[in-house]
């Protein structure tokens, strides 16, 4: 594509245009660079994980600003939780776990034959040290796990003791805690602030070179999974915009990235080597400030209004206009209909309706006493049914959602006023409860057990009065329901899935009626691949990991699984 001749000509053009001597050098740029030879011997791929601007070195997995490959490529966990599918946790550095009957003691059997990237053997002592360091250092205890003790009873057994039954902590303990090397970290004075310049991990890759615009990871030759990884080096780059990313991807400079690119099929039309996978995972929803008792104001505090909106949304149209046709139906239970089938008891609550049902919406509003006024907008007690919905400046698909819903709601007599604010302000409004409606997504929990979504989003423990901060990613809707609270508490106290399922059924009935979060659809999660240099990417037939290039942990699984071409 890029030949020496064309580049020379460009350089000459430059010189003629601006007669600047300093730019003459442009003609001499060496060209051998762009040729990336295939084959396993020196296979290399490039990843764009959403980084923009300058990159600052930080390989400390306990720091909030570590670079993404730290978790997954360098450090590993005891188990891997695949959130893309309903699957049992996959053993990584551990081979078995068991709880004591009272739920206060977790015994972990660690894997044998694993070595750190500096050659030292990995043992249960490293695991015990990791949890003990977290116990001793509040600043790195991100999940605030209360641990009484962490002891290695022999070279392959660790026993963790907790002050109370802690079944629900299991995923974050075994699936999200990076296991570090005792011989390295015992010498680090402040584990929260170190940038861990020469990371030593057990993962498939180790750091090769770093610069503020790009860094390269190289294969860990002594990786414990035989024959993996195949790709020799992995490069991460930084780009400012989705446009820049799409340009680089089409030019073949990026092998793996996850950006929502409008018109994706059209963009990739003439490029056989470029492909993508869509793994919808996040439920786009209208968050409502639901409880007037906690200080919420506006018509959305009336459950009838929320139900009417639920039925007035034409999700098929929204998917076409804003979702690029890539979104899939959501569930009124706020779970993922496909992955979480086994957790949804009531079959009528599996998916949301596709088309709009204005008749039903009108009926609900009429019954609740909202009468249509002269301007076509309903009113009750002299108050017009007018609601403000906030979204973030630049989130173009959400802005399109608002534009379309404005029209859809008008038909049933609800006036929707979209506003766009900065991300900080939007987030702040949600945390503080200072909004009427807000577009956001329901994130993924640490495992596919619905407990994590329900506990965060619907428990009155994670909410606060309007004006006070709710828990992070917590109950921003200010939803309070004693029945739900009780069911969550019951489910937390057991690890019997059948009991949990009964409790979740209670929660699902309540929230599908109250709708503090009005589900729209499960948004697309598009990941683009270049199959020129590597194959074996996750696909919809083989969802062995969440393919998103920005996802920690999963990226290590994907990279270890790739085949060089």
């Amino acid at each position: 594509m890029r030949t020496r001749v064309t580049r020379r000509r460009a350089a000459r053009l430059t010189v003629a245009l601006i007669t600047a001597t300093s730019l003459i050098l442009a003609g001499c740029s060496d060209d051998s660079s762009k040729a990336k030879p295939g084959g396993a011997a020196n296979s290399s791929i490039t990843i764009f994980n959403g980084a923009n601007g300058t990159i600052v070195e930080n390989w400390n997995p306990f720091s909030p600003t570590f670079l993404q490959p730290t978790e997954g490529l360098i450090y590993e966990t005891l188990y891997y939780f695949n959130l893309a599918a309903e699957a049992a946790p996959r053993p990584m550095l551990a081979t078995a776990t068991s709880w004591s009957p009272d739920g206060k003691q977790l015994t972990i059997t660690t894997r044998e034959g694993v070595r750190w990237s500096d050659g030292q053997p990995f043992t249960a002592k490293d695991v015990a040290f990791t949890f003990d360091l977290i116990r001793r250092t509040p600043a790195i205890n991100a999940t605030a796990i209360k641990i009484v003790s962490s002891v290695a009873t022999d070279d392959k057994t660790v026993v963790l003791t907790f002050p109370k039954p802690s079944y629900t902590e299991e995923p974050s303990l075994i699936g999200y805690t990076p296991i570090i090397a005792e011989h390295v970290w015992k010498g680090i004075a402040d584990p929260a602030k170190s940038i861990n310049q020469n990371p030593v991990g057990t993962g498939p890759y180790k750091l090769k070179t770093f610069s503020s615009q790009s860094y390269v990871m190289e294969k860990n030759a002594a990786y414990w999974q035989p024959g993996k990884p195949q790709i020799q080096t992995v490069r991460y780059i930084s780009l400012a915009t989705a446009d820049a990313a799409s340009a680089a991807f089409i030019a073949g400079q990026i092998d793996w990235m996850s950006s929502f690119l409008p018109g994706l099929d059209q963009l990739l039309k003439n490029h056989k080597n470029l492909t993508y996978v869509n793994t919808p995972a996040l439920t786009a929803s209208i968050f409502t400030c639901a409880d007037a008792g906690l200080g919420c104001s506006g018509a959305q505090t009336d459950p009838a209004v929320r139900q009417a909106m639920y039925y007035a949304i034409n999700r098929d149209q929204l998917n076409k206009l804003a979702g690029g046709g890539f979104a899939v139906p959501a569930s009124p239970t706020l779970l993922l209909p496909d992955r979480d089938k086994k957790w949804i008891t009531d079959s009528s609550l599996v998916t949301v309706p596709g088309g709009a049902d204005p008749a039903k919406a009108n009926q609900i509003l009429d019954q609740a006493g909202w009468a249509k006024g002269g301007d076509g907008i309903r009113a009750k007690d002299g108050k017009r049914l007018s609601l403000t919905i906030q979204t973030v400046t630049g989130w173009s698909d959400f802005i399109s959602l608002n534009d379309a819903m404005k029209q859809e709601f008008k038909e049933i007599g609800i006036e929707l006023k979209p506003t766009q604010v900065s991300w900080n302000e939007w987030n702040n409004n949600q945390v503080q409860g200072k909004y009427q409606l807000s577009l956001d997504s329901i994130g993924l929990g640490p495992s596919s057990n619905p407990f994590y979504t329900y506990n965060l989003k619907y428990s009155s423990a994670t909410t606060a009065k309007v004006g006070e901060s709710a828990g992070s990613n917590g109950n921003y809707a200010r939803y309070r329901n004693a029945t739900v609270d009780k069911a969550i508490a019951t489910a937390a106290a057991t690890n019997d899935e059948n009991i949990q399922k009964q409790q979740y059924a209670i929660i699902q009935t309540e929230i599908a009626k109250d709708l503090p979060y009005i589900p729209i659809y499960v948004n697309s999660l598009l990941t683009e691949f270049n199959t020129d240099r590597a194959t074996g990417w996750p696909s919809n037939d083989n969802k062995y990991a969440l393919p998103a290039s920005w996802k920690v942990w999963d990226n290590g699984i994907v990279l270890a699984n790739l085949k060089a071409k």
Partner: protein
Amino acid sequence: MTLTTQAADPADTGATLAEPSRRRRSLPPMSTKLAIGLTLGGLILLFGLLGPYVTQDPSLVHDYGLTGPSGSHWLGTTQTGQDVLAQLAHATRGSLTVGAIVGVLTLLLSAFFGVVGAYAGGWVDEVFSLFTNVMLVIPGLPLVIVISSYVPDKSLWLVALVLSITGWAGSARVLRGYTLSLRNRDYVIASRVAGEKRWRILTVEILPNLIPLLASQVVFAVIFAILGEAGLSYLGLGASGSFTWGTMLYYAQNGLALRLGAWWWFVPPGLMLALFGAALSLINFSIDEIINPKLRNQTRAARRGWRMSRQQLAKAKEAGL
């Protein structure tokens, strides 16, 4: 502060040293440049004023997205099927509103702090000048975010206000420099010696000479405001709820319009911006010629021949008065 790399236009500084002739208030001579500039500017203004009344609702979405120009949509549609022509009409109105607000505010602020300060002299000048310099160095970008955080919906007015607050200082500096050199002119000193009142000297002797310079400063302020707004919008910090050329470009860029070949979405707002800017520049050329009579159509070749046409003679006479 504008987001363009060009901070102060050299044309302004160039004008600073030009000899002003006293109390000359003639209208600019009608040249081709001026005629083109006025026509172009007028047409765009008209489009912005009347366009929104005859086009469709710019936010109305349709089930078909990204279609090229056709009978029902003269300039095609956006990703969500919104009519580009309707958006362009509303955007023109929005951008012109920003330009107008900033123009007026810049005029008032820069005239007050530049002219009054320089004329009064002493500590007033020191304080005004200090204030001007401080305003010159405040980064406008974060100021936009700060101010908008107090208003839930960032309106056009707000963005215009911020652009004026961060943009007038440059003009004030230019005006101050010019006023400083005016107030030491013989005729000003003469009227002071003659015992004229200070405000009278300012309004009668100094201001009329400043009018062309003020006009050119306003024209530049309008150009930079519209460009500045577009720049802010491109970074996602513009007037979010309303239509301007900048926000249109922002959405087009976000929708990868250029890469998907949707030129009808990406090109028109930029072109409108360029055309309007060009129109104002052409008008400014004519204003420059008033500020600086030497720029008028007398060429060196003509002068080298030591010949003067009747017209030029008359002009020279007029200038000498």
